[in-house]
C-alpha cells in the first residue's frame, strides 16, 4: 500500500513524534489530570495510525511489526492481571491498592496513588497495540476498476 505525497510524508515524520509524546503525557499523568490509560492508549494508536495512512503500510509495519504488536497486546493485558493478583497476595483482596495503603506518597506528586499509574501504563500498552493491529489489518489493496482482490488481508507472521 503506497503512501501519500512528499509534503504529507514530511509533516507526518515530524508530527507523529509529538502525538506520541502527548499520548505518553496523558497516560503517565493520568492520576492527576484528565486522561488516563484509555484515552492515552487511543492517542498512541493514532500516532501509529497516522504513519500507516501517510507513509504506507510497509513503512509503518517496519517501524512497529505486527508480531511484536500482538505480543505487546497480550503483555499489557497480563500485566494488568498480575497487578490485580499481587493485590490479593500483598494486600488482602483482589485489586486492593496495596502500594497506596502501605507506602502512601505525597499529594499531587508523580509517584503517588499506588497502583493507579502502573495500571494506566498497562492499559495504555494494551489499547495501543490492539488498535494499531486493527488499523493495519483493515488495509487491503485499493479496488481499482471493480476487480476483486485476492490478497484479502495480510498478517505476515503471528
Amino acid at each position, binding site marked *: 500500500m503506497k503512501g501519500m505525497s512528499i509534503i504529507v510524508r514530511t509533516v507526518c515524520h515530524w508530527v507523529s513524534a509529538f502525538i506520541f509524546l502527548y499520548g505518553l503525557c496523558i497516560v503517565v499523568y493520568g492520576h492527576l489530570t484528565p486522561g488516563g490509560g*484509555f484515552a492515552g492508549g487511543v492517542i498512541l494508536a493514532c500516532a501509529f495510525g497516522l504513519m500507516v495512512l501517510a507513509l504506507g503500510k510497509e513503512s509503518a509495519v517496519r517501524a512497529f511489526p505486527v508480531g511484536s504488536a500482538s505480543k505487546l497486546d497480550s503483555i499489557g493485558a497480563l500485566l494488568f492481571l498480575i497487578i490485580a493478583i499481587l493485590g490479593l497476595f500483598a494486600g488482602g483482596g483482589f485489586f486492593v491498592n496495596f502500594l497506596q495503603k502501605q507506602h502512601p506518597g505525597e499529594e499531587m506528586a508523580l509517584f503517588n496513588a499506588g497502583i493507579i499509574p502502573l495500571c494506566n501504563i498497562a492499559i495504555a500498552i494494551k489499547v495501543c497495540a490492539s488498535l494499531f493491529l486493527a488499523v493495519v489489518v483493515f488495509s487491503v489493496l485499493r479496488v481499482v476498476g471493480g476487480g476483486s482482490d485476492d490478497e484479502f488481508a495480510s498478517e505476515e507472521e503471528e
Partner: protein
Amino acid sequence: MVYPLCVLLFLVGLYGAMTQKNLIKIIISVTIMEYAVNLLLILIGYRAGGIAPIIDRTYEGATFTPVSVDPFPQAMVLTAIVISLGVLALLIAISLRLYHRYGTYDITEIRRLRG
C-alpha cells in the same frame, strides 16, 4: 428538555437501523445509538453550576464536595466509549467478510443469495 432530545437522537439511530438496507448505514446507525446512550448517562450525573471532579492545589474539602459533578457515570462512560470502538472494529470485519463472500453490501441481496 434535554432528556427527550437525547432520546430523540437514540430513536433516530434506531429508525436508521430498522429501515436501511446497506450494511454500512446500519453500522452508522448503531454508532449513533451508542453516542446517544453515552450522552444520556453523563446528563444524569450533571449538577447545575458544578465543576469537574478533578482536585487541584486550591482544594478545600468543604467547598469541593457540594459543587462537583458525579464522577461515577463518567468512569462508566469512559469504558463504554472504548468498548464501542472495539465492537465497531468487529462489525466492520464481519461486513468486509460478507462483502468478500457475496459481492454486495445490500442485505436484501445477501438474503437472496444463500450459500
